[in-house]
């Protein structure tokens, strides 16, 4: 079930009404959330619901076993079992075909003959998100950070909690799980904030991301990039950077807002990353739940392992962590390269910290921030082009043709004719979209000190309501209601 669908709106209102009728009994509310979450997920594929249920049973049991065992070695074995099962399922559905086909290519490259027909595997939606969420539970128990729960229903609802099951935020058990064991109250101000966040999320998804998608799909989908103006290719890259942000942060806003209306506080997943002045800063603000997961459970242990390697103790963990973050997105070299480049850039930033500090002292702050922002955005757009491309060959072709065709101007391409289908894009849509994008970033800039982009409100209700209606009217007339899936559903 997509958030941007009529089905979800009906589902949400029904569950919301029943949920708060049970307000004096949080256990009954948990049962309702459990059933609603499986219904929500099962709407897409009921068969894969069993996979989540299996994952829940495994980690619930292993969590208890890890906690009860005194022997460190046995604890470690249980944790290893959790790793093997969770990564085994993830690896099978997400990476099996990739590894086999790459191995076959390598064998053929070495001069041997090997054939393989790839398995037609469907990637279960949200698998990368709930796998990492359940894993954090067993790791935290192993580390002694949390105690396991005896309440299987609460635990499995924590795993499949419908607002965030398909695309996060990837919650830590220490934050979300205890919320299932206390009475939830709906305060008016919190509910209002939840509604504001949902509205803002819909605006970003439907008015910005899906409108950008019209242009992006047209430009990236036209594979003969040598015929396309370099400026159009740059616009395509920038629009994809905006699309992916509006899409994913829009989803997070809706998820967090919906959870708030059920009395839950989810972690902030985006903190206005596009105002960052370095790649390191962007990653502190982009997809916070997963980047902090990798920081805590991979980067820190790696850093500890390499701690005697001098500068390498910083560089190796960074490059490894970000390459794996890239690979987390999917089984494609484009994602690996995307992560690898970020790892390298961040390593350069870490190693040049002192030098940059010296330079910073000599130049005005605004210049330093401006240059930093430009470089950061250049790297970001460059890498998201690779991220969006279907394969590395097309990614290289796209990037090469930006340079080769920089001064090639075909006016038809700019007015939605020629090689791009006139039915999808036109200059007016471009003007409307540009206005909406500027508006989005302006409003977010005003709210950059808050937890989401539309939080700031006036003391006058009429001003607030006018702003809400303006957003709804914009959505109604300029939104793309073609129910495009959220990009991160595929990861």
């Amino acid at each position, binding site marked *: 079930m997509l958030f941007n669908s*009529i089905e979800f709106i009906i589902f949400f209102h029904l569950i919301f009404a029943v949920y708060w009728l049970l307000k004096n009994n949080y256990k009954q509310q948990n049962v309702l959330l459990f059933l609603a979450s499986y219904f929500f997920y099962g709407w897409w594929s009921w068969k894969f619901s069993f996979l989540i249920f299996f994952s829940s049973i495994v980690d619930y049991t292993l969590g208890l076993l890890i906690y009860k065992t005194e022997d460190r070695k046995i604890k470690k074995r249980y944790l290893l079992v959790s790793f093997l099962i969770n990564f085994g399922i993830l690896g099978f559905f997400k990476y099996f075909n990739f590894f086999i086909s790459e191995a076959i290519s390598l064998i053929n490259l070495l001069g041997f003959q090997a054939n393989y027909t790839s398995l037609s595997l469907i990637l279960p939606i949200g698998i990368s998100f709930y796998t990492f969420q359940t894993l954090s539970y067993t790791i935290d128990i192993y580390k002694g950070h949390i105690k396991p729960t005896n309440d299987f229903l609460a635990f499995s609802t924590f795993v499949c909690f419908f607002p965030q099951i398909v695309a996060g935020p990837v919650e830590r058990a220490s934050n979300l799980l205890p919320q299932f064991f206390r009475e939830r109250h709906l305060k008016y101000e919190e509910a209002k904030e939840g509604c504001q966040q949902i509205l803002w999320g819909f605006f970003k998804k439907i008015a910005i991301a899906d409108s950008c998608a019209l242009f992006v799909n047209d430009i990236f989908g036209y594979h003969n990039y040598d015929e396309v103006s370099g400026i159009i290719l740059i616009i395509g890259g920038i629009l994809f950077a905006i699309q992916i942000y509006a899409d994913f942060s829009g989803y997070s806003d809706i998820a967090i807002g919906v959870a708030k209306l059920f009395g839950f506080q989810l972690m902030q997943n985006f903190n206005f990353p596009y105002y960052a002045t370095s790649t390191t800063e962007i990653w502190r603000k982009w997809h916070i739940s997963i980047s902090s997961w990798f920081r805590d459970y991979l980067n820190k242990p790696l850093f500890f392992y390499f701690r005697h390697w001098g500068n390498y103790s910083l560089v190796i963990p960074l490059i490894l962590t970000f390459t794996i973050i890239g690979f987390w997105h999917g089984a494609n070299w484009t994602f690996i390269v995307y992560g690898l480049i970020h790892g390298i850039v961040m390593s350069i930033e870490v190693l040049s910290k002192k030098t940059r500090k010296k330079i910073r002292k000599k130049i005005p702050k605004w210049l330093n921030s401006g240059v930093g922002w430009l470089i950061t955005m250049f790297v970001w757009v460059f890498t998201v082009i690779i991220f969006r491309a279907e394969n590395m060959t097309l990614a290289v072709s796209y990037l090469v043709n930006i340079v080769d065709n920089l001064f090639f101007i075909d006016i038809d391409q700019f007015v939605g004719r020629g090689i791009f289908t006139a*039915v999808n894009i036109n200059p007016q*849509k471009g003007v409307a979209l540009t206005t909406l994008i500027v508006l989005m970033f302006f409003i977010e800039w005003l709210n950059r000190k808050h937890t989401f982009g539309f939080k700031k409100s006036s003391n006058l209700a009429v001003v607030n309501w006018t702003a809400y209606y303006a957003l*709804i009217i914009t959505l*109604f*007339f300029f939104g793309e*209601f073609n129910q495009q899936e959220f990009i991160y559903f595929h990861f």
Partner: protein
Amino acid sequence: MKRLISKYLLFLSIGFLVLCGICGGIMKYPNVFDAGYFNRWFSTYQVISRSNHNIDSDTLYLGDSVAGQIYRPEERKNYLAYTAAILMPGYYMLAANAIKSNPNIKSIVLISGPLTIGYEFEQYTTYSYFIKPFYLKKNFLYFTKNLQSKIDQYTYSSFFQYPIVKLAPFSDIDCSKDGTPNNNYMLSDISLEYLIKLQQLCKENNIELRLLSAPIMDTYISKTNDWQHLRQQIKKEGLENLFKGFFESIKYLEEESFIDGFHIETKYINESKAHLKKHLQIATK
């Protein structure tokens, strides 16, 4: 909770009224707005509105989207050529409304490729381009039993009259069924029915009806055996006179001349316009 629910309901009610007001205004004066900013089907409301006004000409042009590329509706009041997605009943209703408002009309030129002229009702775009825009009280008298039964398949069809439903961007329904948009490259039942109605309408009003073809890809010659089935159907239905000069007016272009297989590249527009003009003159003689 009570405060929340009451405010939420109040917010929704005011929002609904505001949207109804805005949609009503837009529906009343659709030509004030630039269609490019809106959803793709918004232009349908503009051509419907234009058909109800003075067109300042004795010739009315109707047609599919390729004809719309050649005779852009925003250029002249008498060009209502826009898209084949409005189907033959759509062309008929535009013509009927235009004739009512413009007794000076002496001829109607319908420019549609041999493929699009026969489009079936069951298409992906039918709901947004035909059902919602043309479902107006004043058009009900033009609905045949066959058409009404097809529309009635969609529940809540009576809501289609309201501007907010017409402009709602999230209520699209895919009306397509298996198969190509024009099975066997012939006239569909609905297309045939309304083409005959259009012919009668013109006859009753002493208006000359001319059919010309929009340019089409040359691969269709072999694919359709030079429109063998369509030609046979025309003969069987006794429509030879109506289709006189139609097949001769087809301008076949190479695959490279098309943007997406249907729509022609900008550079071929003038050439196609000249070709149509020539055939229009032949048809007039």
